[in-house]
Structure formats: structure tokens, C-alpha cells
């Protein structure tokens, strides 16, 4: 027997797992009673509800859905990887990684890294375009966030700026 809606099947299972994890986690806290709820009462109830509902969605997906089986489809690993990767690179460069002694490289470097990595998410990436875009965005962000809004940023690499 084939599943009528694979998307619903997967999402239902996901809800079951998440609900169960929250419900189990909630049992570590005081549950209390309805008249005097502990910190675990509300999450336990919600977790159980979510798991039950997820289970229902899963079961239903076997019988109900479109003709094509509503497949989840291919994962777009390329944009996913580059967008998330660009974001992580931005965080590392902006804040540094104190745990391994990596200093902050500042906002400008972080913006260039983010734009250049992120642009790869699309196939026809051109380096010149990327650099132009990064320069515009870096200048614009500097103006908007640092000069106009006076937000606190490490703008330049920490080891180049005297404290």
C-alpha cells in the first residue's frame, strides 16, 4: 500500500516526535495539579496534544491525499547550504569565536563574506557582481547602522583597532 500524502506523513511524524520530546521533557519539572500548576503542567499537556494530533495526521496521510502521493520533493541543498553557511560565516567573523581564540574580524569583513558565500546559492555567480554588491551593502550598512542609528558594532577587525 502506498502513502497518499508523503508530505503529511512526514510532517505528522515530525509533530509526534516533537510533541513527545516536549512532553517527556516536561515530566522533569514539577507537574502540580490543575488548581496549582507547576512549570511542567502546561508543556506536558501541549506536548501530549501535539503528539496525538501528529499521530492522527500521519495515519490520515496514508488514506487521504492527492493522486501523485504528494511527495516531499527534492531538497534544495545548494541554496540551503550556502544561505545557512553565509549566515554562520557572518556570525563567526562578526563576533569571533572566543572558545578557540578566534578574534572578531568586524562587520565589514563579515558582510563581504556573507554576500560572496550567499551569492553562490544561485548557479550563475559572477565574482565581479558579488564584489560590487558586497561593497554597496557594506557601505550602506555602515552608513545606516553605525553612522545614522549609532548601533554598537565591531566595524573593523579587532586586532587592527586599538582599544
Amino acid at each position, binding site marked *: 500500500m502506498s502513502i497518499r500524502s508523503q508530505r503529511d506523513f512526514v510532517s505528522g511524524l515530525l509533530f509526534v516526535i*516533537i510533541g513527545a520530546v516536549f512532553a517527556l521533557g516536561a515530566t522533569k519539572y514539577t507537574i502540580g*495539579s490543575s488548581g*496549582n500548576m507547576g512549570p511542567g503542567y502546561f508543556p506536558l499537556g501541549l506536548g501530549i496534544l501535539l503528539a496525538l494530533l501528529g499521530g492522527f495526521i500521519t495515519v490520515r496521510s496514508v488514506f487521504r491525499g492527492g493522486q501523485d502521493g504528494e511527495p516531499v520533493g527534492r531538497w*534544495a541543498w545548494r541554496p540551503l547550504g550556502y*544561505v545557512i553557511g553565509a*549566515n554562520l560565516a557572518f556570525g563567526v567573523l562578526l*563576533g569571533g569565536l572566543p572558545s578557540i581564540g578566534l578574534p572578531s574580524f568586524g562587520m565589514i569583513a563579515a558582510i563581504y563574506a556573507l554576500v560572496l558565500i550567499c551569492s553562490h546559492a*544561485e548557479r550563475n555567480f559572477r565574482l565581479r557582481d558579488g564584489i560590487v*554588491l558586497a561593497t554597496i*551593502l557594506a557601505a550602506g550598512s555602515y552608513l545606516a547602522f553605525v553612522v545614522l542609528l549609532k548601533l554598537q558594532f565591531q566595524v573593523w577587525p579587532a586586532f587592527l583597532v586599538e582599544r
Partner: protein
Amino acid sequence: MDLIANLSLGFDAAFTPYNLLYAFIGSILGTLIGVLPGIGPVATIAMLLPVTFALPPLSALIMLAGIYYGAQYGGSTTAILVNLPGETSSVVTCIDGYQMARRGRAGPALATAALGSFFAGCVGTLMLAAFSAPLTELAFKFGPAEYFSLMVLGLIGAVVLASGSLLKAVAMILLGLLLGIVGTDVNSGVARFTLGIPELTDGIGFVAIAMGVFGYGEVISNLSKPAEHREVFTASVKHLYPTRDDFKRLIPAALRGTVLGSMLGILPGGGGTMAAFGSYALEKKIKATPGEVPFGQGNIRGVAGPESANNAGAQTSFIPLLTLGIPPNPVMALMVGAMMIHNIQPGPQVMTSNPELFWGLIASMWIGNLMLVVLNLPLIGIWIKLLKLPYRYLFPAIVLFCAIGVYTTNNTTFDIWLVAICGAVGYVFIKLGVEPAPLMLGFILGPMMEENLRRALLLSRGDWSVMVTRPLSAGLLLAAVLMLVVVLLPAVKAKREEAFVDD
């Protein structure tokens, strides 16, 4: 005349050069966002929240509100010119607006959208001013049981009126509620579900969730689709003004749209989108006058009705937020966040504790709507140019502003890691066909619901029947049940699915 006194107080507060400037910036930014595909008002407001930290509370809210209705407006421009709805609420405008553009009538279509929106915005603002006071009175009669029931109604309403699978939407609400209670429990001081991460004791930052799920998730999903072929009708935008015949048709349609939109906007989960769909369905039902273009082929009523309805709905959806403190849609949920950042607890007390803020915001909405009309008709050329900007240049900027924005909310890199996770999760949601909007509402309401449930049951000594023995609370719950039942009726269900199919 209280209403006039109040409104004049509001206009006094809003008519300062600075506030006018922020209303202007907000409307422009909103229109920009609405015009640019691939980024919605939720992500924009989330991105700009940190920017508003530095502003006084009223200016901040004025700017955010400007973004919201500016986006509604900008969305209709792309819908008409490129058949791409910039916002979900302009999906229906595509149908007849784009056909009008193809027949060389882009100008009148754009003007109709602008004038209809402005008219509806004015009425919506008046409604907001008129209804807020009595509703606030009612809100003071609310105890914890009523608030809990009201939130249940709000959440149910949000999923009933939204598109997509009802069950999955309810599951997303539950997930949102669960994520909302991550952090320190206010009653016992216990840190819940923090996984030992100190940054999580304050809870998950909702800016990170909003940007990750709505910003990154959308970007990734857009990039995975082949580039769309866009045909822009630029040459045809010459004469803007509708003919006399057009006016005869569009004015009643705009009136009907405004009335319907204002009513649907007040309902939780309503906002602009549902209003636009409802109005289109209504216009289609009304008999065509002789010589009228059929629907789907460029009927001006198909633009005037939905456009008025979505703007009126956008305006009146502030009513539940400002009077009860309950956000009816994700944009309003972000407004709650903005208010809390400025130490304003949204709810009935805002009107008495910060009257300038309350009435100033209402007055600024009218000002913002006026600005939109004055600015957008002449600026249409610029918006058209923006439409030609390739997504290739756009998405790195979106990713960047999300990253900077989330960093500046707390100045910690932890939020940047969090937004990365939320982005991946958001993409998974899109792949699985689950709507992220209910999650956002649940997330905002989670702590409030728990608190009110606790108090209600503490007062009743643990007796759950308090929810149905108090008449107001029972009424609200009954309304929620009725909504669910009505939607689950086979006849209505088929209609609902049909209504969301033709986009």
C-alpha cells in the same frame, strides 16, 4: 464628542515633523518591500525592529505600521503589472488587475487600487477610532478565564481563515505555544527546555524565529525554483485616471469591499488576505451590468473590491491588538514585540496609560494612507524600475539584513546561530507544506495563555468548568467551536478549498 477630542489628540501627537518623517519612511519602505518579490512584511518588520530601538515608542510604532500598510499597497502594484502578488493579500488582485494591464489599462487599474485602498484606509481608521473605546470597556470586564478563551478563539480563528490544511495548522499552533514557553517560568523561576544554554533562559528570540522562518526559509525556497519569467507592462502605464464608466462600477465595489474588509479584519486571523478573497467572491456573485468585461478578463470591480477590502482589513486588524492585546496575525504579533521592547504592555490599559501613543498611532495610519496615494501615483515609474531588479542581487541583501537585524536585537552571536537553525526549519516547513504563520501566533500567545490558564484555574481551585460557567468565556469558546464546526462541514470545506486553489 469624545471621538473628535481623541482624534485631535492623536493628530497633535502624530503631526510632529519627526513622526511625519517616520510615517513617510515606513510607507516608502513598506511599498518597496511590497513591490520586491520574495520578501514579505513579516520579515521586513522583523528586520527593522532593532532599528526602532533608538526611536521614541510612538515613532517606532508609526514607522512599523507604515511598513505594514505600505506593503499591502506595494503588493498590488506588482500584482497588476507583473502578475506576481507581492503579498498574499494581493493574490486576487492578480486575476483581474493583470488582465487590465494586458489590455493596456494598467493605469486605471493602479489608480483604482490606490484610490480604493485610500478610501478603505480612511474608513478603517475611523472604525478603529470608534470601536476601540467600547471594546476597551469590555476588555476590562475580562478575567483570566475570558482571556484564555479569547486566545483560544483567536488561534482557532487564525487557522480557520488561513489557507492550507487545518490539522497541520493546529499542530503548528501547538508547536508555537511550546516554543513560546521555552525560557524561565515566571511563576516558579524554573528554566524550562533551555538545554543548559544560558541565552535561552530569556526565551527564544521571536525576531530570530520570524526572520529565520519567514526570511531565510522563503529565500531558500525561492532559490530552489527556476527563475520566473517576468513580463512587465511598463509602456502601458500612461493615462492613470479611470473613465466615468469605470467610476460607476468601482465606487460601489469599493464600498462593499470596505465594509466586508472592516468586518473580517476585526476577526482574529482575518487581516487583509481573507478580506480580499471574500470581496472577490462577493463581486463575482453580483450581477454584471451590460457592457461590463467579465471577471477574469480585466473587470475593474475585481480590482476595486479586493483592494479596498484588504486595506480596510489591514487597518481594522489593529483593533484586537490595541484593545485586547491579542495579535490577530503574525504582523501584529511583531507589533506586540515592538511594544514590549518599548516597555508598553499591549492591552486595554494602553488607551488610558498612553493616550497620545494610542490615538497618535491611529491618526498616523490615516496620514500614512494619504501619503501612499500622494506618493505612489507619481512614483510609479520608480517602482516599475525596481521590479526589474533581478533576484540575484536581492537575496544576498535580504540574508544580510536578517543577519544584521537579529544580531542587533541582543548584540549576541547566539541569535545568529539561532536564525540559521530557524531558517533551515523554515525551509523544511515549506517543503512539507505547513504554514509557518500559526506557529508565530502560538509563539507570541504561549506565555500569555499559560499565565491566564494558571490564574483562571487557581481562582476556581482547579475546576475546569470555570471556562464554561462564566458567560463571556463560554461565549468565546462557543464561537471558537462554531468556527471549527462550520469549517469542517463538508459543503463549506469544499468551498474553502476551492477559494484557496485558484492562485
